[in-house]
């Protein structure tokens, strides 16, 4: 695997987007950011990256924390978990909606959301980004393998 480290310019763009969208002021500043396919951003420690550079047949490094595309920055469940304390606003869910969220089913964005992205939270645990549609509902970006199966 060719390791593509985010250069300072790309890093700045991502940090800016994280701040603008989520109010995050410290986007993994103590970590290295690696870019993999489809705009995936992975975070890891510099020690890990250093060791990875001398190993062969590396399949992946660190944690997938966000996806950065032209139309915006979405946070993975783990990315939002790390940044949870910094998020300026989250969509607080009750148990029923939290389960719907983890089934990747749309959830009514009851609180006012300022932009098109919102991070859901249940019992203090951040659960990744949802895209807010014109219908005022948030569409969670939960990957298939993380979803609670439908009955």
């Amino acid at each position, binding site marked *: 695997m060719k390791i593509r480290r985010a250069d300072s310019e790309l890093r700045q763009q991502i940090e800016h987007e994280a701040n603008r969208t989520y109010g995050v002021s410290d986007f993994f500043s103590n970590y290295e950011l690696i870019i993999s396919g489809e705009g995936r951003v992975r975070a890891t420690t510099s*020690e890990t990256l250093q060791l990875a550079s001398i190993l062969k047949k590396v399949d992946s490094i660190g944690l997938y924390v966000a996806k950065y595309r032209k139309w915006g920055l979405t946070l993975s469940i783990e990315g939002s978990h790390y940044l949870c304390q910094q998020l300026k606003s989250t969509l607080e869910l009750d148990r029923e909606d939290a389960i719907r969220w983890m089934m990747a089913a749309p959830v009514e964005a009851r609180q006012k959301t300022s932009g098109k992205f919102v991070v859901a939270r249940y019992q203090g645990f951040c659960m990744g980004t949802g895209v807010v549609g014109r219908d005022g509902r948030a569409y969670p970006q939960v990957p298939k393998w993380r979803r609670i199966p439908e009955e």
Partner: protein
Amino acid sequence: MEHRRITLSEQLLAFLRELPDIDIDSLMEAYSRPLPSSIRINTLKTSVERCLSLLREDGYLLEKIPWTRYGYYVSGGDNLAESIWHMLGLVYFQGPVSMLAAELLDVEPGNYVLDLCAAPGSKSTHIAQLLQERGVIVANDISVDRVKALASNMQKVGVINSIITLRDGRIFGKRHPSMFDRVLVDAPCSSLGIISKDWSVAKRWSEKVSERISRLQLGLLISGFDALKPGGKMIYSTCTLHPLENEAVVSELLEKREDAKLENLHVEGVKTRKPLEEWKGMTFHPDIRRCIRIYPCDSGAEGFFFAKIVKQDGGGA
């Protein structure tokens, strides 16, 4: 608990009867029971207290597994595997005895740890939790499909200091000698300790299977040892009962690497058995008695073999 009747081949029964110090009826009884449902609380995402309280609120009954720090038997409630807490990665399903591998490895935050046969990641995720984000866990496996599951599990648990590699573990040590503080070789095996999880294991087994796999295990163990720094520690584990895959492999390593020494293993809370000192005309290294066997009839769960090996400082590989 549900009981089913299991039948074993004559060949397998004959082998089991030859094991000293085991009551076949109790073993058969253990094989006939499904493994208990057990989880490890993932302290990379939550604290033990908080997790227990969330699970109890949802109606789950939890009982501490005595020989682990983070393991619990779980019953009651809805299907926990399909719960929000599992999907968010607060808990990881793992067999109670399997949790001993990482527990016995003496992982310290800051260590460089290699898990040579890591997929699907039960032990790598456990090691990552013990590292507390300091140091590095290199999780390796040879199987493309199983590495996908490994990557998913490492993600779900939230491991940031991980490297996943996809290669034959037998060449790791040659390519990267003396690099790791800790190495785990949780080797592929004939799985005779987990027949209750998968009865087809019993059907597929023959003496030849154990003979063949023991050569692969030795290659992996030597490679893992070579990847260890002087002063480093290694655990060799299998979920099988056959001496060719356990005592014989470890004994051979001690013959081939003079800086390899066995440390005594001691586990509180579950009965452990002495390893075999000889088998069918083979006499194992005298230090082999430092290893342990755990039988399904003693743990009420899986059967395992564990050896703890240290690389002496100043020796040459």
